[in-house]
């Protein structure tokens, strides 16, 4: 069991995390954040590996990982 948390107000919407998640559990959110960008959101289906790939590639350090 693992999960991630995302600081959606810091997210700049680069979507680098979306492409590296082996389980494709990170998606663009439909609502805008205060910066006016669509941040990413985590769809928890209980199969997050805790690989931390999303957090490693995030240029804005918005993601933390728990396992």
């Amino acid at each position, binding site marked *: *069991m693992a*999960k991630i948390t995302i600081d959606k107000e810091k997210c700049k919407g680069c979507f*680098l995390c979306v492409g590296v998640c082996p389980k494709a559990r990170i998606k663009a959110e439909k609502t805008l954040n205060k910066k006016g960008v669509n941040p990413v959101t985590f769809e928890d289906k209980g199969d997050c590996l805790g690989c*931390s790939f999303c957090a*490693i*590639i995030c*240029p*804005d350090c918005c993601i933390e990982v728990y396992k």
Partner: protein
Amino acid sequence: MDKIYAHPGSLRNTTTHYCPGCGHGIAHKLVCQVIDELAIRESVIAIAPVGCAVLAYDYWDFDCTEAAHGRALAVATAIKRVRPQNIVFTYQGDGDLAAIGTNETIHAANRGENLTVIFINNAVYGMTGGQMAPTTLAGQKTATTPLGRDVKIQGYPLKISELLTQLPGVCYVERVSLQSPTEIIKAKKAIKLAFENQINKAGFSLVEVLSPCPTYWGLSPVKSMAWIKDVMSKEFPLGRIK
């Protein structure tokens, strides 16, 4: 559940001015992770460059100073000689380190100064609007090479890392990339070694980081990472050079 990937303590929890997908943010984080792991936050002194990373001192929560464009290694030399007990590093773009600062770079390396250099190669001048850098690839379109870099007119991409390896004062040179999580993990190891070398008084260490500038490459952040993998790293091969 335990937190297995946390925000580094020495990186301020603030929004940076960098563009979405810019590699400077990843490189800043790696530097902070290494400084935290080596427990050198109290003794480290950073020299920020002129370039997009000019405000790095606003993001790093340790002692930092700023140098005039290209002069980071001259400032670092002075600080390290006066305060040899401190761990001194420069963080410089390709315009800063390999164009206006070539002189300072080569002579600091040749003197074998016991310093750590984080060299961000994004193949353009980001801060000033995407002009050609010494590291711009042949054929690459920039603000000052709108038809693509013509090597007959603008010369070839400058491989300053390879040039530096010929100098006896240079201890360690490695080229890494931010193109994927696996390469970022390798980049962190290289940065750590470059700091450990200084702690062990081994001499001049430089890590060249291939880093995306999606804004002036005219590519999305995801496509910029693919461009490093498919194009840029063919011209600038990854791995340990010395």
